[in-house]
Every structure is written in C-alpha cells, then in structure tokens.
C-alpha cells in the first residue's frame, strides 16, 4: 500500500503543479488564433548562384531581418524553412501590404563616399539629437507625462532628420553588392574584424574610392537597402597614393564576435544577386482569431463533457475513475503545452480535443477486460489486476501506431500540420500515464475502501454472482 500512497501523492503533486503552470505560464498562440500575418519567402537561384545553400539562406535571412526591423512590428519571428525558404511571422499585422512591399526584391548593398560639405550639416543634426536625448532622464524624473511624450516625438522626428542627413552626406559611387565576392569574420591578433574581397572590376572601383577617401580624409559609407551599416575611414598615410588595391580589405573597429558576424552576414546578404519572392501569405484578422479561440473552447468543453458522461454512465464506478483520470490528463497535457512552449494553432487545438477522446481508449480496454474477468468468476481484486495487465499489449500497440502517423506528419508536414502532430503525439504519451498509472492507482485506492468493494459497481448483470468479496 506504501507504493500506492506514494503514487497518489505524486499524482496530486503533478495536478497542483500543472494548475500552477497553466495559471502562471502564458499559452503561446499561433498567428491563426491571435491574428497576424505569416509570409513564406522563396529564395530563387540565378545564373550565377545555381543552388541555394545554407550559407546563402543565412545571409538572405539577415537581409530580411533588417527589412522587417525597419517596419516596427513587435516580436516578429524570422526563421529559415527547408532548403530555400524563409518564414516570416508578423503577429498583430492585419494587412501586411507594407511588409510585402519591402520584402520583395533583391537586396541593395552599395559603397558610398562622403561629401565633406554635407558633414557639417549632419553634425548639427546629431548634436540636436543628443541634446534632446539628454533632456529625457530629467523629464522622466519630473514625471510630466505630456512633456515626456512631446520630447519622445521630437527625438523620433530628429532621428528621421539624422537619417536623411546621412543619406545626403554619402554619395553613390557605382560600387555595389554585385562586385563584392565575399565577406568573412576574422580575428586580427586579438581583435575581431570583417574581411571583404571584391572581384577584378570591384577591386578597381574600390581602389579609386579608398584613394579619394584617404586624400580628403573622409569616410566610406556601406549601405544595405539604403541603411548605413558601417562607415569606416581609410588611413591617409598608408593609402593616399594608390587606395586599397588588390580587392581585399579588412574593416576593424570595436567589434565583438557577434557584431562582426552580424556585419559579415549583412554584407554577404547584400552581395547576393538572388531575387526573393513571397510565395505564401496567410493572414488572419485579430477578431477572427478570437472567434476561433471561442469556438474551440466550446468544442473542447463540449467534447470533454460528452466523454465524461458516457464513461460514467456506461462504466459506473470505474467510469468515475476514468473521468477523474481524463480531467487529470487534460490538465497535464495543457500544462505540458505551456511548459514546452508549444505554439497552439487551430489544428493543434483540434489535435488536443481529439486526443481527449482517444485518451480514454486505454480505460475502455482495461475496463472491458476487467468485466470479462469478473464474469469469468474471478475475485474483484484479481479481475482489476488482470484487466490492467492483459490490456497492456493492445494499448501499447495502438498508441505506437498513432505515434508512427504523428511522426510521419511531423517530419514531412509543413507549419500547421506540425502543430497538430505535436499536440496529438504529446497527448498520446501523456494519456499512457494518466489512463494506466493514474487510473490504476485510483482504482486500487478505491478497492481499499470496504463499502465500494462491490462487483455490481463494476459490472452490471453478473451471471450467477461469484463470491467476489471472499478473497482479496
């Protein structure tokens, strides 16, 4: 009995823990439920780049990240999918027109030269920005909300002016991403740097550009999609005669390993002549998502209630135990979703509701077996024991086959399909625990209560009632 009590306590602890998890850890909702836009972007091979590899895809992903960040969407998700696709998720975006416009098209990387006459203008703007930013802490201390908001708006406007001024300062030189062959992170001594190399034509243009920069003591501007990535200077003493020749150069600065890698990827992404195209757009308005959540909650509760009623009416006392086990199942599974960070999509919820119906299968198998044993004249205790024991191989087989189908769905399926496979599989595994261990423990506990140890509570119409209570 000690082991049973231990298991009971474990089950109780799990139930409490899962309630805590459900309350404390927020459920991650898919875009089809919270509303938002999911775009699949296809990277297309070209004459020069015949096959898209991981290296290219990574660089393209960086370019897309840069463009998305410019849109000001909160918490976008950008990940690679398959060999040549990038998946972009934009929560809360109802109409992704703007995103679709900026995402299409090839990345534009170019190297520009500084125009000295415009620099003074930029400096003034930058100083104005710094002044505004310096005022902010004092305002925040004073706590005047209107003044804070006004100042923030002024800062935003000024930032825009600075950005425009930067564009004025740098002039296009004709040296663009097409000529850049490669970019890589290097460790120069113990300083991180980014090495770049150009092709023949690019090398000539770059030499001319750096020569001019060295002579006038100005900087270069490296732009990706019209945004300044880096503005390195050229050592006048070393390069004012010839510029940097040979087509290889190293950008140094206060790089960390990460920031160097970031610039490398941006440069490489910008140098790729691969066009990208949006091939899939799934957008769901926020209200529609809420409607889906509401209807699936109704469907879930409806399904659960129907199954509970059926089990209790048909299987009597064991049915009550199965019902308790099923509620435990629902709690544990939902907590597991939150804990493992499973993103719930509409098909995922369907999988979960479906698994509620499947979770009692094991109980049905066990109880039917138990009834047979009781009818065959065995004692109640032995009937219950052998019901659990002899139903096990069927339960195992049926769950394994469901898991096989889930695995096939998961490995080969796309987005939505995966959510369904994952929730169903998780449900099957957890149901093995609740329907077998939980209900067995509860059943044995019930059997230890004298007044409940009546075969007719387990099985109606027992033929020529055997002396079931005699031994146990």
């Amino acid at each position, binding site marked *: 009995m000690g082991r049973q009590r231990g298991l009971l306590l474990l089950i109780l602890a799990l139930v409490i823990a899962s309630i805590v998890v459900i309350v404390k850890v927020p459920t991650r909702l898919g875009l089809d439920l919270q509303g938002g836009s999911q775009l699949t972007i296809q990277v297309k091979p070209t004459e020069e780049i015949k096959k898209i590899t991981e290296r290219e895809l990574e660089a393209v992903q960086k370019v897309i990240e840069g463009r998305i960040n410019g849109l000001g969407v909160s918490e976008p998700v950008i990940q690679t999918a398959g060999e040549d696709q990038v998946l972009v998720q934009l929560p809360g975006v109802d109409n992704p027109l703007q995103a679709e416009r900026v995402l299409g098209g090839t990345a534009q990387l170019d190297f520009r030269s500084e125009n000295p006459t415009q620099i003074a203008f930029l400096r003034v703007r930058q100083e104005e920005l710094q002044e505004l930013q310096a005022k902010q802490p004092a305002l925040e201390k004073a706590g005047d909300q209107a003044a804070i908001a006004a100042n923030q708006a002024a800062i935003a406007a000024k930032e825009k002016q600075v950005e425009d001024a930067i564009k004025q300062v740098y002039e296009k030189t004709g040296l663009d991403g097409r000529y850049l062959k490669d970019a890589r992170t290097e460790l120069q001594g113990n300083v991180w740097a980014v090495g770049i190399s150009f092709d023949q034509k690019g090398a000539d243009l770059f030499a001319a550009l750096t020569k001019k920069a060295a002579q006038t003591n100005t900087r270069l501007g490296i732009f990706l999609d019209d945004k300044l990535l880096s503005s390195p200077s050229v050592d006048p003493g070393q390069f004012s005669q010839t510029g940097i020749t040979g087509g290889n150069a190293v950008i140094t600065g206060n790089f960390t390993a990460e920031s160097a890698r970031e610039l490398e990827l941006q440069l490489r992404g910008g140098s790729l002549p691969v066009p990208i195209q949006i091939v899939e757009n799934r957008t769901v308005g926020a209200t529609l998502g809420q409607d889906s959540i509401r209807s*699936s909650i109704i*469907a879930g509760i409806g399904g659960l209630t129907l199954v509970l009623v059926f089990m209790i009416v048909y299987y009597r006392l064991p049915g009550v135990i199965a019902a308790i086990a099923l509620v435990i199942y629902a709690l544990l599974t939902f907590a597991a979703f939150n804990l493992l960070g499973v993103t719930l999509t509409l098909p995922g919820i369907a999988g979960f509701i479906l698994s509620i119906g499947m979770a009692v299968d094991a109980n049905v198998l066990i109880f039917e077996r138990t009834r047979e044993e009781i009818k065959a004249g065995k004692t109640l205790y032995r009937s219950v024991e052998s019901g659990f024991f002899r139903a096990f191989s069927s339960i195992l087989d049926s769950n394994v086959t469901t898991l096989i189908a889930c695995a096939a769905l998961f490995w080969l399926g796309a987005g939505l*399909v995966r959510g369904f496979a994952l929730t169903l599989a998780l449900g099957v595994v957890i149901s093995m625990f609740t329907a077998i261990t939980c209900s067995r423990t509860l059943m044995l506990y019930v059997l230890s209560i004298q007044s409940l140890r009546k075969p007719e509570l387990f099985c109606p119409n027992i033929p020529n009632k055997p002396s079931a209570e005699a031994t146990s």
Partner: protein
Amino acid sequence: MKLNVIRQRGLWWAISSALILAGLAAMAILWTQIQAPLRPSLDFVGGTRLQFELDCTKPNNCDQPIQTAAVRDVLDTQGLAGSTIQVLGQEQHAVTIRTTTLDVDQRSKLQSALESKIGTFDVKKTQIDTVGPTIGRQLFSSGLLSLIVSFAGIALYLTIRYQFDYAVFAIVALLHDVLITIGFFAILGLINGTEVDSLFIVALLTIVGFSVNDTVVIYDRVRETISLSPGRHINDIVDDAVNQTLTRSINTTLTVLLTLTSLFLFGGETLKNFALALIIGFTMGAYSSIFIASTLLALWRERTGNAIAPVSATPTEATVSKDSLG
C-alpha cells in the same frame, strides 16, 4: 448479441465494395469535369482567397447586404472574371473571393476597388490566403509522401509485433478506410462543391494512425486465443475474438466520435470538414476492423492451409494472473 462475422462475410464485403465503388464513380465523374479526383483547395493548386467583412461600427456602412453581382462587377473590371464569390453570414455582411494568385499590388487594387463600391471593411476580420502554385504542389507531394511513410511504418511495426499476414490485412483495412473517406469527399465535391485542403491530408493520416487500433485489438485477441486453444479452427477463433472485443471496439470509437461531433458542431468553419473526414474515417475504421480485417485473415489462413494452429507444449501467459503492471 453475437455476430457471425464469418458466416455473413459476403454481406460485409458487398457493403464495403458498394461504398468504395460509389466513391470511385464520384472521383471518375469529377475527373472528367476538373481533371482531379477531388476538388483541390488553393492549398494544393495555388491562388488567393480573400475574406472581407463590412465594418459595422462605421455609420451607414452596413445598411445593405453584400450583393454577389456587385462583387462580380468589381472583379470583372479588375480582369478577374473567373473567380468564385461567396457571400457569408446571416446578415450577408461578409464575402469570400477566390481568385488566381494575386501579388501585393493586384490585391491592394482589388481591395480598394471593392471598398469604394461596397463599403469599408473591418481589417480585424480580414483573412488573406495566398499560395503560390509551387508551394501548393510542394504541400501536396509532402502530404502524399507522409501518408506513404506512415503506411510503411505501421506495416513494419505490425510485422515485428505480429506476423506478416496480420500486417498485410491491417493495411488492406486501412486502405479501405482511407479510400471510402476520399470517396465520400469526392461525392461531397460533386454535389456540394466541397474542397479538400491540407487539413484533409492530416485527417487521412490521423485515420491511418487511429483506425489500425481496433484492428490491432482484434488481432491481439486472435493471437491470444490461438495460443490458449491451439486446436480450434481459425473461423471460430476469429468469430469469438470479434465478439469478445466488440464492445470495446465500439466504445473506443464512440468516445472519439463524441469529441469529433463536438468539434464538428462547435469548432468553427475551418475545422468542420476536418472533423467530418475524421468521423467518416474512424467509423469506417471500426467497421473494417470488425468485419473486413478479421474475415480476410480467416479466409487467408483457411486458403493457405493454416486454419488450425499447431499445438504448442508451453503454457501461456494467460494462466498467470498475479503479474502486475506499472
């Protein structure tokens, strides 16, 4: 109640054949109409589906229901004459439009043309699905591949756990369930215009994974009975096994059908056909396990001369009842 599955097997097979034939006929007719056995949704063939709903918080915006003709006019002027239009909702304030694949500029042009003609739409109730044709094919082929892989996986597992002939007939029963479900949706596609989307493939895979359960339970009992009383004829054993497991076959399917019915009734538009496919597939799964897989196994054993299993000398596990689990 005792079922004589073996004696009446001609009847069971006739019912199944009729259902399969009806489905195949529907697929054939559909093929002559649209060159496909089922009506594919844009998930598989590509295209754009837009769902708009009028913003009723704006004054006078929702005074009139949306007229299909008005929408059709706008589409015609945009050069999208072949599109499908469906007005939705009790008050007819929502519309779905399915067109060829639109890019972002075509789509925004269409949307503003519609808004100027019909009224302002609520962005929070807008749904956009655009699938490029290549993605559609990709979805279809990966779905088909996962179906084949799961069939193979289940066949392999059953061969390891049971014997090869058990596995073969379990797969035959599964094909039967899948074929009838597909046939049912072909019929729906014919009379109702019902389309199948990627969730349909998910449903088929789930049917494959779940429907084999009942078959496994019956086979498990057949195996157990053979080892308990080796001298009996396979027909008797199968009849007994089916009857002994009948309640559980029905009840396990019933509990799942209860949740599916709830999903079908309350789960919303997206999940309706998904739930329906599963209801058909699971019902057929129970039917084929009880009537098809069992009788085929018996027939096969009888024809190959294995109707009576050799008597083995070792006692079986069934005599042991003290063993526990967990």
